[in-house]
């Protein structure tokens, strides 16, 4: 057991050494000190097992067992715009990453307001080291989480967004991560840093998609810092290959009276783990976390959320829904901390699961830890199946059984989808949901 862990660490350690060499002259920078500390910490920790409370229901042994190679830098001619066209939204600033590598050719950023940055992180590290250094890795703790440590160790590129004070960015920013297939089983560790100034506004879309049904690991860390009175709407769409692994970790740090909304839509992979942590560190902030997972076959989709009410007079709303078909498994863990100072907190958490097959399962765990006394915190979790009476009502009007089930399942997903404000993204989601419902049906029919 220990032997294998050490071997594993050796694998990443030797990968790290190769990675270090490829960085050449950069190895004296503060970023590199971060990488070194992170790999050292990863070597100490190793991958988590189900004995770790945070990973109790999500066995990542298949990830730990695989020797993922670093994704080779992407050749510009490997993927053409037409290949990614189905995932592109027009009227957005777009940064495209292929197997974790930034593609200038496929990206498209229109004219930005003064002092606004929408660029890849490697460029920002070079051109704005102070601005980046002030925030990078300050919110996501690599000493507690092996995947974050691995991401920090191999930190090289990702997206960097900076919105100065009082700027309202009209067009959404779309970060498109494409897995384009590779001969090897590869890992990518994108790192995103998003900073919004006071009274600024940003609409952000992250999507993780694949062009081939390969096995690979996407291990992304996104840090978002909201300035006072700023508003960020963040949609994440994740639809990886059913052989792939997705570990996505988002850290949100909210300053006074800021407003953050996340709509996280997950179609999973083989294993998908979405972690989102929001710290409300100043009065009058508001945080909304919505999530929708759709899994089928043998997929596992895990959503871990933490809302940390550190200061008084903050509101949080959380709505997470799962639709599980086939032999899929869902995990939901929703932590809400209300610190001693955080009086007048208003926090509401709802978690609803729809099981479409007898073999699908969900482990759901709300976790409220309240240290203040004058607060309003509610949570509710339901797990159920489609309602027989509703199905009958639709059928009695001539609607086929399968269509009736789809209509009701779609309606279940509807209130989360409705929260996405970017129209083409919403349309894409609706099409993907319909396709996923069809897949689930097929897998049941052929059983």
């Amino acid at each position, binding site marked *: 057991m220990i032997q294998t862990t050490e071997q594993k660490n050796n694998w990443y350690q030797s990968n790290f050494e190769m990675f270090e060499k490829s960085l050449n002259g950069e190895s004296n920078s503060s970023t590199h000190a971060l990488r070194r500390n992170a790999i050292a910490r990863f070597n100490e920790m190793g991958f988590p097992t189900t004995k770790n409370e945070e990973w109790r229901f999500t066995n990542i042994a298949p990830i730990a067992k695989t020797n993922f190679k670093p994704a080779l830098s992407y050749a510009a001619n490997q993927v053409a715009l037409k290949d990614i066209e189905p995932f592109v939204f027009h009227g957005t600033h777009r940064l495209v990453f292929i197997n974790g590598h930034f593609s200038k050719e496929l990206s498209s950023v229109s004219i930005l307001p003064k002092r606004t940055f929408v660029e890849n992180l490697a460029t920002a590290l070079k051109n704005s080291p102070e601005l980046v250094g002030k925030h990078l890795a300050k919110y996501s703790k690599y000493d507690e989480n092996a995947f974050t440590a691995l991401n920090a160790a191999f930190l090289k590129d990702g997206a960097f967004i900076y919105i100065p004070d009082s700027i309202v960015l009209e067009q959404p920013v779309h970060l498109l991560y494409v897995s384009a297939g590779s001969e090897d089983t590869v890992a990518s560790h994108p790192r995103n840093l998003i900073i919004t100034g006071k009274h600024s506004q940003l609409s952000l879309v992250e999507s993780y998609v694949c062009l081939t049904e390969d096995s690979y690991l996407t291990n992304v860390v996104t840090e978002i810092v909201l300035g006072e009175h700023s508003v960020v709407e963040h949609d994440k769409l994740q639809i990886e290959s059913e052989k792939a692994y997705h570990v996505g970790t988002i850290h949100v740090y909210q300053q006074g009276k800021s407003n953050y909304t996340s709509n996280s839509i997950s179609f999973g992979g083989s294993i998908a783990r979405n972690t989102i942590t929001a710290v409300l560190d100043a009065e009058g902030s508001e945080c909304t976390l919505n999530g929708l997972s759709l899994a089928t076959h043998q997929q596992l989709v895990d959503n871990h959320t933490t809302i940390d009410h550190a200061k008084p007079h903050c509101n949080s709303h959380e709505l997470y829904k799962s639709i599980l078909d086939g032999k899929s498994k869902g995990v939901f863990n929703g932590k809400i901390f209300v610190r001693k100072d955080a009086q007048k907190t208003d926090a509401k958490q709802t978690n609803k699961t729809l099981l479409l097959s007898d073999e699908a399962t969900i482990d759901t765990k709300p976790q409220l830890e309240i240290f203040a006394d004058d607060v309003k915190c509610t949570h509710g979790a339901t797990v159920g199946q489609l309602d027989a009476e509703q199905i009958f009502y*639709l059928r009695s009007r*001539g609607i086929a059984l399968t269509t009736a089930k789809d209509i009701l399942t779609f309606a279940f997903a509807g*209130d989360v989808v409705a929260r996405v404000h970017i129209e083409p993204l919403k349309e894409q989601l609706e099409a993907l949901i319909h396709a996923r419902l069809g897949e689930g049906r097929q897998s049941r029919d052929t059983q």
Partner: protein
Amino acid sequence: MLEIKNLHAGVNGNEILNGVNLTVKTGEVHAIMGPNGSGKSTLAQVLAGREAYNVTEGQVLYEGKDLLEMAPEDRAREGLFLAFQYPVEIPGVSNMYFLKAALNSIRKYRGQEEMDAVDFLAFNKQRMKFLEMDQSLLNRPVNEGFSGGEKKRNEIFQMAVLQPKLAILDETDSGLDIDALRIVADGVNKLRSKENAVIVVTHYQRLLNYIIPDFVHVLVDGRIVKSGGKELALELEEKGYDWTKGENEKAVVSA
């Protein structure tokens, strides 16, 4: 059009229908009356194909076909319609979307062209007028938050859109005030023709002042104990259902 022969049905081994016999011909209106819990809704639901009820004995022929063999959606496509006593609420599904899906699946089954959104809207408008229904109900989720009366009116509206051959109205009058009752009854009457038939389930005589039945049947303890013309309804109103109890005992004895 409909021939029910010795129908027995129940839930979890509890028999609710104990041998119902009923024949309905095109152009006829039949009323089924009876006290609460006598099995009226069970009969209606069994005819519509509700799987929660097990048919243990008997046969139902609908236009010569074995109705009980058909899936609920095929019964609807073949022209059977049930206006529910308690229509279920379906949050997240708009009434409009639902009705369009229903109408088009029926049209498709009948080899007719599907209706597009524009035609559907125009068609609806005309049907709504006819029932004096509020347009806004169409954009709301199916039955969600509807008052009792609105739900009943929505059922008849669906009937007006789907134009069934055999409509079964299960206590459509309950929850309606006198004006609403008249509108709904007018709607039903306008939909009547020589080609279709209606079964009106009710336990008050009130509705039958507006929808005049050709036959009245009394269902007690899962069995039709008395049948007659429209005057039977008045008689029941006067004497109450207790009056039929003796009839039931007679029926049991003779069985």
